[in-house]
C-alpha cells in the first residue's frame, strides 16, 4: 500500500499533526485526578476546540491513556510505548504553511501542558521538562513512514525546531518501522520551561509577520 503513494510525499502538506510532550516523573501523576481535570475542561470549554467527552483506556497496556475527546482535536495523557505525556491530536484541517501548522499544534500542546501543570488538583505532580517532544503525522496517505517522506519533512522540521529551541542544540530520531506513523522524537540538550517555548514560538510568529 505504501509504495503506490510515495509520490504524494513530495511537496507534502502536513495535516493531522500530533505533538506529545513527555512528563517528568510520570509515576507521580495521579491519573484519577486527570479524569476530573479533563471533565472540568469540558465544563468550562477552556480550549479553542469544541470539547466533547472523556475516554479512559488505562486498562490497556501502553495505550492512549485518558483522552479528552474534542471535535477539532483530542488531548490525552498518552502512554504509547510506555512514555507518558500530553498528546495533542489534530483532527481537523489547519490552514497555513507546514511551519504554521507545526506551530499551531505545538502551541496547543504547550498551552494544555501549562494548564495541567498549574492545576492544583494535580498537586504539582504534573510536570513537563520541555526537553522531550514527539511529533507524529497521523495520516498515512499524506505522510507514509518511508525515507522519502522523512527527507521532505526533515528540513521543514529543522527550520521549525530552530524557531522553537532557538540556538539550543537538539537531536531528532525518526520512527523506523514503516508500518507505524511517520514520527520523530526530539530531544533538546537541556530542559526548557513551557513558557519559554511558548515565548519562542510567539517571537518566531512575530518575526515571520515582520513585527519587530
Amino acid at each position, binding site marked *: 500500500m505504501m509504495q503506490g503513494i510515495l509520490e504524494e510525499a513530495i511537496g507534502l*502538506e502536513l495535516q493531522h499533526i500530533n505533538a506529545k510532550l513527555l512528563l517528568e516523573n510520570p509515576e507521580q501523576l495521579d491519573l484519577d485526578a486527570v479524569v476530573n481535570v479533563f471533565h472540568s475542561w469540558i*465544563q468550562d*470549554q477552556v480550549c479553542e476546540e469544541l470539547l466533547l467527552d472523556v475516554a*479512559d483506556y488505562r*486498562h*490497556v497496556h501502553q*495505550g492512549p491513556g485518558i*483522552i479528552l475527546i474534542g471535535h477539532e482535536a483530542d488531548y490525552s495523557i498518552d502512554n504509547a510505548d510506555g512514555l507518558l505525556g500530553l498528546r495533542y491530536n489534530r*483532527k481537523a484541517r489547519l490552514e497555513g504553511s507546514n511551519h504554521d501548522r507545526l506551530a499551531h499544534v505545538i502551541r496547543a500542546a504547550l498551552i494544555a501542558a501549562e494548564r495541567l501543570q498549574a492545576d492544583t488538583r494535580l498537586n504539582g505532580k504534573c510536570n513537563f521538562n520541555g526537553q522531550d517532544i514527539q511529533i507524529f503525522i497521523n495520516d498515512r496517505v499524506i505522510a507514509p513512514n518511508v525515507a522519502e517522506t522523512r527527507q521532505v519533512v526533515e528540513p521543514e522540521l529543522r527550520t521549525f525546531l530552530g524557531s522553537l529551541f532557538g540556538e539550543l542544540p537538539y537531536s531528532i530520531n525518526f520512527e523506523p518501522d514503516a508500518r507505524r506513523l511517520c514520527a520523530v522524537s526530539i530531544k533538546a540538550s537541556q530542559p526548557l520551561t513551557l513558557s519559554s517555548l511558548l515565548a519562542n514560538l510567539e517571537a518566531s510568529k512575530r518575526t515571520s509577520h515582520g513585527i519587530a
Partner: protein
Amino acid sequence: MKVSNPLWKEKLAGKMPEHLAREIDIFETEITLRKQGKLEEKLFAETRLRRGAYGQRYDNGQRSDGQKVQKLNFPSGDLTKGLNTLWDAPGMQRIKIPGGGLNAEQLEVMAELAEEYSDGIAHVTTRQDFQLHYVHIDDTPALMRRLAAANITTREACGNSVRNVTACPYAGVCTDEAFDVTPYSQALAKFLLGHPDCQNFGRKFKPAFSGCAQHACGLTGLHDLGLIAKKRTNEATGREELGFEMYVGGGLGAVPYQAKLFDEFVPPEELLPLAQAIARVFARHGEKKNRNRARIKFLIQDIGIEKFRELVREERKILPFDPRWTEYIAEAQTQFTEAPLKPAVDVTELVLISGLNGHGPEFQKWLQSNTRPQRQPGFVTVTVALPLGDITANQLRSLADIARRFTRETVRTTVEQNIVLRWVSKGDLAELYKALHAVGLGDAGAGALVDITSCPGTDTCKLGISSSRGLAAELRKRVSEKSFTSDQAVQNLHIKISGCFNSCGQHHVADLGFYGVSRKIAGYAVPHFQVVLGGQWERNAGSYGLPVVAVPSKNIPKVVSRLAERYVADRKTGEIFKDFVVRTGKAQLKALLEDLTKPPAGDRSFFSDWGDPREYTLGDMGEGECAGEVVSPLDFGLAAAERELFEAQLAHERGEPQRAGGGAYRAMLTAAKALVQVEHSDIGNDPDQIVNEFHARYYDTQLFFDPFAGGKFANYLFDAHRKAGQSYTSESSRYLMDEAQLFIDAAYSCSNRLGTLVTA
C-alpha cells in the same frame, strides 16, 4: 474530516473487490446527497446503519457536563445523519468479521484505522466484530475502502439486516466438535450479504454456528438462527452424513428467548436455501411497525414454531433454484483450510517452564487458562485476553507479527471479546508467551472470572443507563487482587455486564450478570445494576439467569465478593454456580444482598458512576439506533434511482454524455423495478422484464398515472427503453436526465398513492 479522504479512492482503485468498491461509491454519493438535502434523513440513517456507521452518545448535540446540559455547537450546525443525530457528532463504526477470522494484514489495517480515524483503540465485540469509536461520518468512505482493500466489509454490520455470522473460534481444531463449521458459516455469510430477500426485515437477524452442543463458544441458543454441527449415520447406506441441528428465534434483549428447534438435521445442501426461506418468511410476516416486537423470536412466539416451520417449508418449495446454494459451500471448503507453520512438538509443562526466566508462575497460570489442546496432536490454541475487549494499534501490529512468526496467520476473534491464535506448536509456547508478554498481551485468566465481558454502556452508547465498562474495569482490578479468593470454582465463573436491559453484554448467560438501571434516592438519580444470577454460558447459552435485586453501582464489587464467599462456603461437592443459585433461591439471595441496596448515608460518591466523576443523570440517553427505522425496499429503490441520476448528472458535467444518458435510463429502470418489486419480489435485472412488468402492473392499471399528466411520465421510460443502446449527445442526455427526474418524481407520487400497501 481527514484531508486525505478523497485520495484513497484513487490509491486503492483495483485493489478492492469490485462489488465492495461499488458499494462504497454508492455510500459516498449518498453522503453527498444528504449534505445537499437531496436524501431524506430517515433513508440516510438506515443506509448508514447498513454500512455499520452507528450513532454514539451525545450525538443529539447535547451533553450533561455534571453541572449543566451543554449544547454542542458543531461546525456543520443542524445538518443531521439521522433522527436527532448531528452530522459532526462522533459515531461508532462496526466492522464485520465473519466467524471472527482474520489474517495479519487485516490486523495491521485495523491498527491503521484505529489510529487515523478513531482514538487508537480497536474494540472486539461480543459478536466477533470490531468497533471503532469517535469516528466522523465524513471519514467512513475512506475507512471502508481501506477495509475493502483488505477484503473486509462493514456492509450490514448494523441496521435491519443479517448481522455478522458468528462461529465457534475453535472450529476445525476443537477436540470434541462434530466437524469444522467454518466453511458453512463463511458460505452463509457470503450468500446472505446484500441478498434481496434480506432487505426488508423489521429488525436485525443474527446467525451463529457451533461445532458442538455442549460448549459455549457458538452461543447458538441466543441467536435468531443457530446451527449446531451434527453427524448421523444414514440407515440405508450406512454412511456417515454431516448436517446441522437448526434452531430459530433465540435472542436476549429485555426478555430473553431460548431458540427453538426448527429441524433436527439439515444437510449442507439445504443450509443456504432454508436460511433464505426463513429470511423470506421473516421479511413477509415479521412485525414492521412496532420495533419492540420485530425480532423473529416474536413472530415465532405469536404463530408458534409449527406454523413457522410450515411457512418456511412452503417457501422453500417455491424458491427459484440458485446454484450458489452449493457452489458457495464448495468454494469455502477450498478457501478456508488451515495448516500449521511449524511442526507439531509435544513437550511437557516442566520443559516449557524451564525456558521462561522469571516468568514461571505467571506462565504456568497462563498455560492453564489461555491455552487448550487442538485435536491435532502437538498443537494448541492460545487465547489472547483483551481487557474489556480493547486492543491498541501498536498491540495489533505486534499481534500481526506474532501471528506471522508462530502461525500461518490463523487468528480469530471470540464472543468473549478476545483473540485466539490457532495452530501454535506446543514447542513454541514459551517463546510465544514471551512475545505476548512483551507487548502486554500475556495476561492469564482468559475465560475466567477476571475476563469480564462488557458492552460499551454509558461510555459511548446512546441507550446506556449505567457505566458497564467502568464497572468492568473496577471489578477486573478487584478480582485480580491477591486478597480475592483463589478458589478455582469461583475463578472459573463468568461475569458479564450490560449498560442497560438490551443485553449487549450478554448478562443473561453469565454466572454473575449485571445490567444497568437507575433508581431515585433522596430525589437524585443513582446508577444501579440489576443483579442476574445463575445464567448458563455452557451448552451454547443453555439457560438464562435469575434477576435478583437492583444494587447501586458502587456496591457491585461487594455483591461479587459476598456471592463468591457464600458460594465457597455453602456449595455442595461439585455443585456449579447455576445449581447453587437455584438451590439457594431468589429470596435467600436477595436477603444476602439486601443491605447493599441502599447507599451509605451521606456518601456522595454513589451519585456518580464508575470512572465518571460527573453527577449521574439519565439526561444523556438518546434514541437507540440498534435498528434504524423500517425503510421499505421501495423507498430504498427510489433512493437508489435518485443516486444513479445524480451520478449521471456528474458524468454530464464531466463531458461524458454516453455515461450520462445510460445512467439516466438506468435510474428510470431502477425506479420502475422498485415499484414492480412491491408485488413481485423476484423480478430480476433484465430491462425487458422490468419494463414489461412495469407496463402491466402500473401503466395498464393506470396506477402510475399522474392526475393531470396521465401516463406521460411512464412513456419517458418506454421511449428510453426503446432507444437503449443508441448513442447520446450532450443535448439528448440532458433531456433524458430531465425526463428521468420527472419519472422518479412520479414514482414517488405513485409510492405515496400506494400508501399502506407499500409499507405493509
